[in-house]
Structures are given as structure tokens and as C-alpha cells.
């Protein structure tokens, strides 16, 4: 959110420049069934981009996470994007109108999932803004473009970091399974063999009368 101060000229300029920093959120939530986050897009034609990754709980039988759904709704009620059944994806769109956009995660399964996501809305002042505000230099436009480029790098980094965490989780689970299941296999094998020998003993014991086998 921009910090808006309304006193001196310098503050207004700072305000204009700081207004290039849009609402940036990077957080992860636990989605039980539906969780919605709202973002305020201040100008028309702002670029909104983001990504989300589902941080897995322990998956047993299937190879990948079944995924959750993401629905992005514009202030007018239209669905801008709908991503279904993915365990992580990126999205980008140009906001047709300014206002509050809703990002809703829907979890069709019964287990709560932890989703880590990042949403960024960026504004680059164009010719209209330059004409309106005489304090804005064309250099400010360049700086804004640079800032937006850096923000997209940051977004990509956060996405990679979240995916790395998920990958690491899977690898550690593989390691645990390899050790536990092989040791369990040995014990089970030894127990089966012991049971076999005990059964043969019983077959040949005097009390059951199988002396003449």
C-alpha cells in the first residue's frame, strides 16, 4: 500500500514516485476450502502478475499433487483467469479496469493445503501522467520501468524458491522412504522365514502325530 502524505511539494513528488510501488504481497496460506485475497489495482491497464506453489503434504500413492484451483475475478465480476488443478503456476494479465481484484483459491480435496503465492501490480507512468504532473520527468518513466523489471525478477525468484522447497520436501521424503521401507523389508523377510521354520517344526512335532512324513 502506498503511504500517502499530503504536506509539502517534495512529499507530493515522493508520493508520486512511491506510487509506482504497488501492493506487493508474498505469503502462504492454508486453504481448507476457499480462501480469497483482494488486491487493489489503482490504474487501468496496469500489469498484474504473480505465481503460486502448493507446498505439499505427504503424498502417498499418486506421483504429483492433485492441485488446487485459482480464480481471478475483476471488479466487474468477470473471471479474468481460471487455473484448475495445478500444483503451481504463473499468471500475468493486463487489468482492463481499476478496482479491487479477487484472487480466490479453491481446494476441492478434504485435506487443507498450504499455498505460497506472490502477487504484484505494477504501474508505469505513460504520456498522460507525464502531461498531468509537471514534476514527472521522462527519467522517472525509465526508473519506473527499471523498478518493474526488478520486481519481475523478484517474483521469479520467489517462485523458484517455493518450488525448491517443494522439491526438497519430496527428496527428503524419498530418502526417508528408502531407508524405512528397506529395513522394514528385511525385518519382514526374517519374520516370514522364522514363521516358516516354526510351522515346519510344528508339522514334525511328536504331539501332532506326523512322525511318519
Amino acid at each position, binding site marked *: 500500500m502506498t503511504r500517502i502524505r499530503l504536506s509539502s511539494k*517534495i512529499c507530493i*513528488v515522493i508520493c508520486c514516485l512511491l506510487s509506482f510501488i504497488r501492493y506487493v504481497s508474498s*505469503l*502462504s496460506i492454508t486453504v481448507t476450502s476457499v480462501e480469497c485475497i483482494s488486491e487493489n489495482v489503482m490504474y487501468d491497464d496496469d500489469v498484474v502478475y504473480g505465481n503460486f506453489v502448493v507446498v505439499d503434504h505427504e503424498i502417498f500413492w499418486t506421483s504429483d499433487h492433485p492441485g488446487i484451483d485459482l480464480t481471478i475475478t475483476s471488479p466487474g465480476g468477470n473471471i479474468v483467469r481460471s487455473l484448475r488443478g495445478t500444483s503451481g503456476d504463473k499468471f500475468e494479465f493486463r487489468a482492463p479496469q481499476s478496482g479491487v481484484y479477487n484472487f480466490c483459491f479453491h481446494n476441492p480435496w478434504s485435506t487443507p493445503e498450504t499455498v505460497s503465492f506472490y502477487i504484484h501490480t505494477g504501474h508505469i507512468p505513460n504520456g498522460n501522467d507525464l502531461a498531468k504532473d509537471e514534476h514527472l520527468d521522462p527519467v522517472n518513466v525509465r*526508473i519506473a520501468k527499471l523498478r518493474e523489471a526488478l520486481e519481475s525478477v523478484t517474483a521469479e525468484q520467489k517462485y523458484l524458491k517455493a518450488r525448491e522447497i517443494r522439491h526438497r520436501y519430496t527428496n527428503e521424503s524419498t530418502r526417508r522412504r*528408502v531407508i524405512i521401507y528397506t529395513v522394514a*523389508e*528385511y525385518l519382514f523377510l526374517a519374520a516370514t522365514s522364522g514363521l516358516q521354520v516354526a510351522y*515346519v*517344526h510344528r508339522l514334525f512335532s511328536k504331539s501332532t502325530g506326523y512322525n511318519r512324513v
Partner: protein
Amino acid sequence: MVDLYRVLLVVLMLGVVAKTGQSLRFDLQSGHTKCIAEDMKSNSMTVGKYSTVNPDEGHPLPQSHKLTVRVTSAYGNSYHHSDHVESGQFSFQAVEEGNYMACFWAADHKPQTTITVDFEWKTGVAAKDWTNVAKKGSVEVMELELKQLHETVKSIHDEMFYLREREQEMQNLNKATNSRMAWLSFLSLVVCLSVAGLQLWHLKTFFQKKKLV
């Protein structure tokens, strides 16, 4: 059906790279707790501000809209605690690395009221108060912007190193799992053959003792 103390964990994954703070709004029901956690690196500066949003403009906040806030580190040390306040702020240097939790609790009220809390939490680059830097020298606004961009680039660079280290660790983990699986499979073959051999030997001596062979 009615779970009074359902804690919704919101983990903010900013990590090292925290460009801008996030100001988010969430609803808190009276008697419930909501916790927001953030992963922080050691010796990073952090600033947080929270306030209750007044649903009735012009009228004073009702007595029931009071928050109890506690900020604790991953090891359990409390860094901030306030009881029954409408708004407040905290700032500290995160000595310990890990997940810091800010938990909000709304006092119980007979008809269940929902309080909207506006919370802003900044770490790392964003926690630096740029307006103070601007006031200190007569720093031009553009220079300030460029300084901010420089800090951003540095933190992106640091994050890349961090990701690279993590990837190296994961590669080592995978290689260890790979060789471990080979050894354990070979060992399982050995165990199988030895168990079978033991079985045969035991049954042979058993039958010899029984004078059947």
C-alpha cells in the same frame, strides 16, 4: 461444527529478499486467534504496524474492538506484547533466524463481532526508513529512487547465492540417496540369500536330529 479456537496460520515467505512491505487486511472474529508468520534471516531489521479498522466512520471504536498482540521468535522468545489496544507498532532486529510469529487475539464478546485488522510488516530493504535518509542530506528524490533500486539489486544478488547454495545441498542429498538405494538393494539380496541359507541349514540339522534324513 463450531471450532472456537481455529488458528489460521499465514506464513509470509519473504526470506532474504523483502523489497516492499505488505499491508494486508484480515478479519478476526472475537475469541479467535490469527497468526501471521514470517521467515527472517539473522540480523535483519523489521518493522510492523497494526491497527483496527473502524467500521463506523465518525463514531468511536466500540469497547469490544481491542486486540492483544504478541510477537515471538521461532525459539519462543517474546519480542513484543501488547494487551487490549486498538493500534500499535513494533520494531526490532531479528537476532535469531527462523519463523517469527505475530499472533492477534480479539477479546471474547457475546454477539460474535468481526474485527478488521490492518497489518503492515516490513523486513529487510523495506524496513529502512527512506524518508529519514532523504531528510538527512538534501538528497534528491531521484537519487533516493536509484539508491532504493541499488539495494534491491543487491538483495536479488544475495538471494541468487542463497538459492544456489540450496541447490547444491539438494544435489548432495540426491546423490547420497542414490548411492544409499544401491547399497540397500544389494544388502537386501544378501539378506534374502542368507535367510534362505540359514533356513535350509536349520531344517537339515532338525531333520537329521529327528533321524528322518
